[in-house]
């Protein structure tokens, strides 16, 4: 069971959170203009990264805020958490992989 550093509440137990999948998947600005493949990619396709993964969590039993986490999918180490809308921290992702 992880300890997840909520950017607002500090470190809290995983059971207070819900998982939201890959982070930084932008909803197309003009969905009507997206062709079928582009739209399907947005709706259905996500990376399955071995290494540091940028992912979304929501502190559903706490402050109810969505935020992003950089987590290593092998060691489960959490390298950073940051607010929704913020740029990911400058991590050397290659060397972590």
């Amino acid at each position, binding site marked *: 069971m992880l300890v997840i550093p909520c950017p*607002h*509440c*500090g470190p*809290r*137990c995983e*059971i*207070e959170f819900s998982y939201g999948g890959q982070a930084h998947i932008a909803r197309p600005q003009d969905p009507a203009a997206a062709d079928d493949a582009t739209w399907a990619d947005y709706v259905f396709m996500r990376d399955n990264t071995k290494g540091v993964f940028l992912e979304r969590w929501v502190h559903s*039993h*706490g*402050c*109810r*805020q969505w935020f992003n986490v950089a987590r290593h999918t092998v060691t489960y180490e959490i390298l950073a958490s940051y607010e929704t809308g913020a740029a990911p921290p400058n991590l050397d992702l290659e060397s972590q992989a």
Partner: protein
Amino acid sequence: MIEKYLRQSPLAHMGLGARSGDDTAKAEVRLAERPFFGFVNLRGPGADPAFLGAFKAASGYALPTEAGTSGGGGNTTALWLGPKEWAILDTRGDPDAGPRMADELRTALADFRVAVTDVSESRACIRISGPKARATLQKGCPLDLHPQAFRPGHCAHTRLAKATALIHLNGNDSAPEEAIFDVYTVRSFGEYVWLWLEDAGREYGVTARLS
């Protein structure tokens, strides 16, 4: 409004008066429902000094902006729920406090992007105290409730067993008497949380009081 006696607190149907439980003197966990209170959910731009100033001007005290803290003055207490969310409480037992508080806040904060919502009726409040109050809560709460980690005046929105709960430790740091926790849950989770606390505290002895 209708007569107060016709209004039912969230746990009124449980007959708490008859659930005396263990010998009061020996019981190390004391449970009570706090039946009527004002609970207003306030949303607003927590980083905006003008908003914070307007709240302070209206309420006489500052909104807490640090995670897990509370502030208060006069008849109300503000609990930090999130960076843009607070619970404003009036726990004097007035069943109509919520709508009144909501109206006052709405007027005072009309210039800001806020939401003021009276949720008094949608919360149950269980007060738990006694030497084993912490140990009982700790069974179902993942937070560290050690006196050094969770101090008087602290509050946290967290999990309690299978419910979501807002836990508020009464008092302030300068007078940390015996721990008295107020546990707020969604109204319809109140019975579950009460039964759970009663069961969790059973090995320490539990006594139930009306309030």
